[in-house]
């Protein structure tokens, strides 16, 4: 069995929607309950996230954006930048703590106190850009963790595997011209799904050309298409890139029961993806994986897929 860090904080529940919204604290409550009942939390290593240092957030986001977010929360605004991205008076702090959760997972893995980490954080992050919040995301947790590993632990090359059903436009933009962070995304085709980016020819720019890889899936695609993409597209790219750590932007909204998209991935699809990424990590980066929660909005499939995900990480 592997040592897997379990990153969670009760304050993550304080970021609550002012109106009915799919990205709600109940997601984490359900995950926590489910993993607890399955006896999995006691088999992981609990790690309490801390508030991150300014420098770790500023490695990704503009100071001006952080000020704007903080002011909007303090002022009592209901949304930030777009109508779908809500905030309340806690959201600035909780967004920092969410990023802190990704950092805590990265730290535990980098220092070797655990083999892998699962960060049950919210708000999610992969749509958040350098100076904009959108798509339920305020701070880009995965990007912040990648920069943290590079700045504090001497990590050179980081791979981000983003299997949330939506394209992580924020993460892609942040690392678009950066050859040291490889961004791979598998998502529903942008013609049909938010945010409308992640077409197959978006491959990075300048020095970062070739370290962005997008594999849009047609509506209706499922486990078979995902398997083919991981084996035939992701794997050769990882062999060429040779990452030192793998971060997973782990969204579970590609599941067939999720209401926000049109894909047909099943529980077994998520088992396959986790196992495949574990295999890649074992081959190229001493097994180092930091998995960070993104989307997933249907409670039953969200919790069962995360159970599978954690069991695969535990390698029991």
């Amino acid at each position, binding site marked *: 069995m592997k040592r897997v860090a379990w990153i969670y904080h009760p304050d993550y529940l304080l970021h609550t929607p002012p109106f009915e919204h799919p990205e709600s604290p109940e997601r984490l409550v359900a995950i926590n309950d489910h993993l607890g009942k399955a006896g999995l939390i006691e088999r992981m290593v609990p790690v309490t996230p801390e508030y991150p240092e300014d420098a770790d957030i500023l490695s990704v986001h503009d100071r001006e954006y952080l000020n704007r977010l903080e002011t909007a929360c303090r002022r009592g605004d209901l949304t930030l930048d777009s*109508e779908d991205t809500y905030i309340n008076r806690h959201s600035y702090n909780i967004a920092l703590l969410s990023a802190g959760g990704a950092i805590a997972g990265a730290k535990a893995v980098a220092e070797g106190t655990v083999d892998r980490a699962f960060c049950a954080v919210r708000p999610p992050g992969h749509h958040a850009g350098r100076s904009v919040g959108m*798509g339920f995301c305020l701070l880009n947790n995965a990007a912040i963790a990648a920069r943290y590993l590079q700045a504090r632990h001497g990590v050179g090359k980081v791979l981000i595997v983003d299997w949330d059903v939506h394209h992580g*436009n924020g993460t892609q933009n942040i690392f678009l011209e950066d050859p040291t962070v490889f961004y791979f995304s598998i998502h529903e085709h942008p013609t*049909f799904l*938010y*945010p409308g980016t992640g077409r197959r020819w978006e491959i990075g720019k300048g020095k970062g050309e070739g370290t962005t890889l997008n594999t849009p899936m047609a509506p*209706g695609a499922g486990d078979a298409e995902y398997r083919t993409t991981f084996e035939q597209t992701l794997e050769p790219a990882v062999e060429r890139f040779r990452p030192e750590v793998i971060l997973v932007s782990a969204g579970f909204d590609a599941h067939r029961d999720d209401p926000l998209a049109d894909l047909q991935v099943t529980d077994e699809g998520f088992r396959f993806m986790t196992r495949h990424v574990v295999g890649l990590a074992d081959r190229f980066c001493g097994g180092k994986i930091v998995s960070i929660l993104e989307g997933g909005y249907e409670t039953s499939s969200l919790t069962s897929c995360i159970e599978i995900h954690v069991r695969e990480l535990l390698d029991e």
Partner: protein
Amino acid sequence: MARRMKKNIVTVTPSASLFEAHARMREHTVRQIPVVSGDGVLVGIVSDRDIRAAVLPAGLVPGFTAEAAEKFMKSTPVERVMTRKVVTATLTDTLEDAIVLLHDFRMNALPVVDAAGKVVGIITRTDVLEAFIDALGVGEVSSRLEVVVPDRPGTLAQLAAIIGSFHVNITSVLSTRHVEAGKRANFFRVATLNIGPIRKAIEEAGFKILDPSQFLLP
């Protein structure tokens, strides 16, 4: 037309050499150049294909060298190879006119001329595609909805009102005929990730949301 055409047009005179015209095309990365008389009146259009076609036969002669090709291009005036019957657009034409002209006459570019016949702009297939990309809302952060509605007045307004009730902006709308008789398909791009409740409200109002996986069936 005036809004979408390129105004900083590159032109040549009829007596300019093919070499000069070709150099200007490369410099400005364009594939065709309007040919104008001294007072700016359009007299023809010359494309990189016209130039290639003119040089090609000479290239078949034995002993023809790169220097000979250059000499040929430098000594041949544009008026010898340009197309004289040019399909043009006018400033009062619309973008739709341009699309139809480009399509029906199989053109790559239309010089835009004023009432005196002077060239004031040029509009290419690329400009038209750009207009389409804008109109479709491609690249704007948004979700897409496809709704089948009965072909009667007021349905689009009804849908817009439903979407509006969620305080969500519509970034693009398209309405087309649907395969089913008596129905239309309306396509919306809306600025939200949270598309579920909008879909549900539209279905509850009695409209049919198209299943995106159906679009990819042959």
